[in-house]
């Protein structure tokens, strides 16, 4: 097999290149502040950062390759494992891409429930970000408070999907099933109290001078740098670029919801913190709107060759049973073509690039995940700052190694 002639050896650390007095410090993969198995090769001059080189791949599981051997529907559970903190966004993005290829129309109720769940999932993601970020800065308590609310969200997921983290609830063509009867009431109960909880975190952090001093003016990223590095989501908006795919390139019925897209022009870690806090409040509003205007109707598209029939039907109707059998054993074939579907997930712009060759298995699935691009901006944000700022910056860009390594 072909060797890679162009691959150079590992770059020499700057100390050996320049003869300066620089200490090379490995942060990670086994390090509490790197949110997983990120490895940062940091060159320090005293406590001042000279360079940061991210080394990734410790969590690489070859999901893109695995997808090529699965039926279209079987890919959905794989996507959960990529950004495990925002599972339903993964599901949604993949389903939307395949539905685009199939040209499927999704019933409105399914769309609304998808929006509702995706926003809950975003809240989940932001809660974990807030907790771990605060913990990196040293505020232990916020972490446990956010996990208290995250637990509620996970219970909601469990009630609807039977799974807490790897939900796989969305199907190509709708949802896997109608949510349980009192589920919407439970969501309502949660979402009514949630803004107070945000206030609670805010009380602990926003006015806290230590927290403010740790974040303000740290990890500055200009709008042009952010765009050059492909930074998306809250970090991009905190740098002053007003782009949110939910509003600007709506999908899954987001155009029917009213929400503000918070931006800031400061571009430091504090701006990212504030943007995300406001985003949590806005997500709460979206969930409220989804609950208020929840339409009735089916939760699955009327496409018997693609969507699994209801259990009841499958047991009573011959045709449904045959469809069920065929979908489960052979999958369904998808017209040849290539589509790219981008959505706005908790961390930024997620994109699924699905190439079909007309068979029942995807020819190529590629995922664009925000953290992968955002990670490239770390060095720009940290250079010349202290090592403690690196921790603040990593926390503020909210990376998930699952989506970087895939």
């Amino acid at each position, binding site marked *: 097999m072909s060797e890679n002639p162009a691959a150079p050896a590992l770059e020499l650390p700057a100390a050996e290149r320049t003869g300066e007095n620089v*200490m090379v*410090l490995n942060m990670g993969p086994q*390090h*509490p*502040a790197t949110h997983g198995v990120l490895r940062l090769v940091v060159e320090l001059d005293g*406590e001042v950062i000279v360079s940061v080189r991210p080394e990734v791949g410790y969590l690489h599981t070859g999901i893109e390759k695995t997808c090529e051997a699965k039926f279209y529907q079987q890919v959905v559970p794989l996507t959960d494992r990529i950004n495990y903190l925002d599972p339903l966004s993964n599901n949604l993005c993949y389903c939307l891409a395949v539905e685009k290829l199939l040209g499927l129309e999704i019933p409105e109720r399914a769309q609304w429930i998808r929006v509702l769940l995706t926003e809950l999932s975003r809240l989940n993601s932001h809660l974990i970000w807030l907790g771990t970020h*605060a*913990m*990196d*800065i*040293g*505020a*232990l*308590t916020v972490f*446990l*408070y956010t996990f*208290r609310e995250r637990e509620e969200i996970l219970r909601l997921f469990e009630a609807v999907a039977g799974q807490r983290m790897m939900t796989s609830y969305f199907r190509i063509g709708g949802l896997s099933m109608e949510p349980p009867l009192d589920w919407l009431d439970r969501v309502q109960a949660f979402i009514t109290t949630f803004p107070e909880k945000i206030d609670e975190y805010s009380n*602990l*952090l926003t006015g*806290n001078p*230590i*927290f403010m*001093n*740790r974040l303000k003016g740290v990890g500055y990223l200009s709008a042009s740098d952010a765009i050059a590095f492909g930074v998306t989501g809250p970090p991009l908006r905190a740098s002053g670029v007003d782009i949110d795919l939910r509003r600007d390139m709506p999908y899954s019925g987001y155009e029917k919801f009213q929400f503000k897209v918070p931006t800031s022009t400061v571009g430091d870690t504090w701006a990212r913190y504030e943007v995300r806090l406001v985003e949590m409040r806005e997500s709460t509003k979206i969930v409220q709107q989804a609950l208020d205007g929840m339409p009735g109707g089916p939760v699955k598209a009327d496409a018997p060759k693609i969507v699994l029939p209801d259990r009841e039907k499958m047991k009573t109707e011959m045709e449904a049973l045959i469809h069920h059998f065929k979908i489960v054993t052979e999958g369904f074939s998808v017209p040849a073509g290539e589509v790219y579907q981008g959505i706005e997930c908790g961390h930024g712009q997620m994109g699924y690039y699905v190439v079909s060759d007309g068979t029942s298995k995807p020819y190529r699935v590629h995922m664009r995940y925000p953290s992968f691009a955002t990670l490239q901006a770390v060095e720009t944000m940290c250079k010349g700052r*202290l*090592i*403690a*700022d*690196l*921790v603040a910056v990593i926390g503020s860009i909210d990376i998930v190694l699952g989506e970087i390594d895939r």
Partner: protein
Amino acid sequence: MTILEFFLWSLLKVAVVTVVMLLGIAYTVLLERKLVGRIQNRWGPSRVGPFGLLQPLVDGAKSFLKEDLIPTAVYRPIYLLAPILSLGCALISIAVVPFGANMGPHGFDLFEISNINIGLLVILGVTSMGVYGIALAGWSSNNKYSLLGSLRSSAQLISYELALGLSLVGVVLRAGSLNLRVIVEQQATLGIATWNIFGGFQFLAFFIYLMAAFAETNRSPFDLPEAESELTGGYHTEYSSMKFAMFFMAEYGNMINVGCVATLLFLGGWTSPLGNLMPPLQSTLVNALLPIFWFVLKVFLFLCLYVWVRGTLPRFRYDQLMNFGWRFLLPLAIVNIVGTSLWLAYR
């Protein structure tokens, strides 16, 4: 009393106080875990014994049974010496702390190991020696995290030691003595009204002392040396089993020491909030034990303050920490000295 009797009595006192101190350390850990747990909506240790009361003992046993690693890259003699120095210094200060009125027969101090005229300075001296444990631990570990942690920590300790020492000058100015007993008794006249923190107008000094003490003990929000999100374990990254536990114990021991000193210097020591206004009781036993109760209560509340702060505040960045110490606390301490001396001159 012959010197031999004195020696034996002293040995007994030392033994009792050391055991109590070790237990105190163990239960301070438990207190912190329980209290932080309650702050954070958790239970804290609750399985071993009633309310988790046996947890510290089990933890101690576990520390002993853990594998005792000495990494190959370390500089052994100093690597082994460092935890001994750390824990040793944490256990010495208690020797000059009086925790009850002088009750012993023949003028023998039952409630203080050694009643000396320069008690306050002894505490400062012991604190200044505590730096070695941390500096040497990090240096001998031959690990970048340890070295960074230990340099940070030693620089932090020595910086805040200044503020700590200078904040005490106000109290000494008032008392005119370095003897801790004299300092306490001087506060006892009107109870809470003559405590140094209120009556002595040493609130500023208490504030400086509090900040410096938090930094001296490496506690949140000054817990940078062990900021796990940056430096993993800080200076004790390479330490395992009991050697690690000794650093841990040293930290909590220092918390207790600092609490004791704060109680003695600012909060009236073992005297009750009513001070001498409270009529003496008839029972000798109660008279002996009540001061201990007050003393322990005050130290306990001080420790709770520690835990509360830990559950609430994030941590400083290193440059902010140094700036705070040098540019804010130190000048403030000098201002306090000038103010107090001026006030005392014109009073």
